[in-house]
């Protein structure tokens, strides 16, 4: 390579170039960019955080704004992972700290942020076991008993997985392993992580590395003290999930006759939306945080508007669930707060 090819993260247009490369599924080009950056002396940490993670955040925004298809988002993520693997292949740090297990909670598929965390911790001298996306609780616990790590880093990006995250946190702590939580699913500032008994929370990979570098493990109370959350309203909603969604679908069809003409895909998509409403409601009831539901509604209203769906459709969907829960005051309060959070159409 010539001297002219020295690259830096400050280069104008670099982020856009990289975004285009991953978006076009150009593994070769993407790997070439990170390799050139590393060759120019940029630290692997900065490449991972500023370039790869930064680009991934934009990929998510592009999907939410309906500029990118799901397929393109997935392809971009796959390329980002290849670029990350290229960074990882270039670094070799002997372990000097303890052993950490990194996993995404059961049902959680956003593995790239945890993969970046895995590399960041490896660079910081941790011995890392990366279990990847969608790790069922029993699998995680088996792993803990077999490897005896000093900490579990658990990622949850979507709040509907919080009940399962809670089960995993409680089980890890009962097995004597402290847990650091991470990911948007744990709420603003990781507020819900504390309810669920996590020993610590970190907003991102860099914070997690700093948090684990000193004063670890923290003192923590008996995990059984926070082993049960939720109440009878939560139990009702979860146990009747299928009925709530099925009834909501029927009521929607009554309210909006064109639904009778929907094909299987459209019906599936609508039922999936109803399932989101029920699942986020359940999560809000479980953690006793209305904000889980209001945040979801605010976000969803943005997403559906980007896809040309009027906010009224969201209100009708919400009502079809709400009308089945009149006898459940907490659920009603959560749903009402959610309706208030539906945004007016952009452009006002």
């Amino acid at each position, binding site marked *: 390579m010539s001297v002219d090819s020295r690259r830096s993260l400050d280069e104008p247009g670099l982020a856009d170039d990289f975004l285009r490369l991953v978006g*076009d599924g150009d593994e*070769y080009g993407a790997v070439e960019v990170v390799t050139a950056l590393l060759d120019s002396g940029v630290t692997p940490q900065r490449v991972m955080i500023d370039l790869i993670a930064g680009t991934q955040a934009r990929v998510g925004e592009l999907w939410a704004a309906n500029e990118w298809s799901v*397929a393109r988002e*997935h392809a971009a993520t796959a390329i980002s992972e290849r670029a990350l693997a290229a960074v990882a292949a270039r670094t070799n740090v002997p372990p000097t700290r303890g052993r950490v297990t990194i996993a995404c909670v059961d049902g959680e598929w956003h593995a790239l942020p945890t993969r970046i965390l895995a590399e960041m911790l490896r660079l910081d001298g941790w011995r890392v076991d990366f279990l990847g996306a969608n790790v*069922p609780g029993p699998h995680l616990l088996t792993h803990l008993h*077999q490897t*005896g790590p000093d900490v579990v880093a658990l990622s949850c990006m979507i709040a509907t997985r919080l009940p399962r995250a809670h089960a995993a946190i409680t089980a890890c702590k009962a*097995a004597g392993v402290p847990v650091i939580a991470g990911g948007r699913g744990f709420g603003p500032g990781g507020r819900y992580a504390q309810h669920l008994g996590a020993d610590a929370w970190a907003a991102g990979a860099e914070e997690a590395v700093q948090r684990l570098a000193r004063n670890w493990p923290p003192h923590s109370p008996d995990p059984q003290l926070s082993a049960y959350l939720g109440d009878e309203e939560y139990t009702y909603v979860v146990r009747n999930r299928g009925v709530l969604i099925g009834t909501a679908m029927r009521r929607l069809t009554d309210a909006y006759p064109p639904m009778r003409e929907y094909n299987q895909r459209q019906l599936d998509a609508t039922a999936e939306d109803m399932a989101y409403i029920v699942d986020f409601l359940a999560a809000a009831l479980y953690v006793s945080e209305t904000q889980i539901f209001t945040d979801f509604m605010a976000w969803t209203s943005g997403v559906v508007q980007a896809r040309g769906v009027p906010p009224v459709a969201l209100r009708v969907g919400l009502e079809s669930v709400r009308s089945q829960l009149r006898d459940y005051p907490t659920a009603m309060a959560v749903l009402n707060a959610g309706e208030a959070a539906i945004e007016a159409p952009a452009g006002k």
Partner: protein
Amino acid sequence: MTAQSPTTRLPAQSPISTGEKLTDGPAPALLRAALDAASEAVVLCGAADDTILMVNAAARTLVPGLSAGGNAVEGPLPGLAGALAAGDDTFTDVYEGRHLQGRRRMLGPDHYGWYLRDRTDEVARADALRAERARTAFLAEAGRRLSSSLHQGRCTRITAELAVAHLADAAVVVLPVNRRQAPWVRLVAGEAAVEGLLREPLLADVPGLVEALGGFPPIPSKWLDASQAPEWLLPDDFGPIGALLVTPLPGNAEPAGALILARRGDNARFSPEDEILARIFAARAGAAISAAGLYREQVDTTAVLQADLLPPELIQPDGIELVGSYQAARDAMRIGGDFYDVFGPTDTSSDTVIALGDVCGKGPEAAVLTGKVRQTLRALRLVGAAPEEMLRVLNRALLESGRQHRFVTLVVGSVSRGEHGRVRLELATGGHPAPLVLRLDGTVEEVPISGTLIGAVARTVVRPADVELAPGELCLLYSDGLTEARGGPTGDEQFGEERLHHALAECRGMPAVATVERVRQLVSDWVHGGARDDIAMLAVRAPARTQLSVRNGSRNQSPFAIDARRNDRRVRQRS
């Protein structure tokens, strides 16, 4: 001492209260006798200068140093003096080993009395109760923490941590000798644990250690000469060891190790109560460490047995993307009745052979059969058998193995590179769902192959087919666990082929790894956690060639922009 001699003012002759006529009541001598007869210790003082006016018999017995005429402030009870200085009405003190509690009562304006009580027994009982509670809390914490982990290293560390927190200034856990070395963990209060291996001859340096590891009864601490402990046992800055205790860690019929406790300082000792507590604790720690050892043995054995049954690491032949995914219904074992395998090129054939199948049954039994099937396929591949021939031979092999009701469905394919980045597949099925092909334009086709299931009837019918993939196209082999996965919003609906077709169509242009991940995610969401059946997928893709075009600045060659210009369906049925 006060200037006044105690004899100058005999208490009996002193008016208790100058402002009071006693003529109507009992004589002072009688009152004095009554006070001496009381069991409560009473000390009367003048309020003006704290001079002791009278000490009753009980008080004299309790605190012989107190006497009338003296000054309460200068007496033998610093606690009393302190209370007077501070103006308090109560004090506690220890006098010659007795715990005292004093209460002051004003007796008229000029006098007050201290009423003293001996709390020695009470304090001793409270101390005993507190100690007992601490022991109980310690053992409860030990039980909870030791039972939490099945990992031997963690159990050993937890043992050292608990011992240092509750029993000693330093703790060393030594595990039984294995190959002339004994694993050990050392923890000194306030420092990080140190782990390592001890050479067997060193063990004899520590008094009592060889005996403890041999399972002999513990030797009382007082018989162990702490000064004989070797220098390597504790760090240099620990200082001289005051007391040493070596306790066996009892395990399952054989010792699980030994616990060495050390206290620093000249006066340090281990009381008999300490030794008993250490022994009770050691029993729990030993049980946990040996259970973890058993678990590790089982895991190691299972891992060896599992190794050949787990899905293989896939080879990555040039010009072909190969991605597998396997999800066992029983996640702890991670093995089941579905399988896939890939056999790379051999000396005689440059083709890559792929197979994906489903053995009837579940769990370890099914897994063992998949192992046999995979091994048979590997051997057949080495003799250069074509896919349909592999199925026929496998059918006979299974029928002749004599096992009743053991059949398998599978797809076998031979993959080779064609021209212009194309990939050719020769596919045959034995009763297995036909693979799907995702074309560049997003259409999803079922490969037109059919065949009877393998291992059920002597005569099989296999109708193979050839498929050709253009760059960016993908062929997916899958097990029926995928389409039969039950769930959905209402909970009991099958995922079904239509949804799989749609899911694949959405993956147009995606790398094979992302496609497989996407389908897996959709099914996982569909079943809403916990698939009840094994799911296996194997994707073959002709890599899209986008790099050059993208770097030349042209974006219309992106796989997302490519619109298939082919109209030919490159699938042809062979009959």
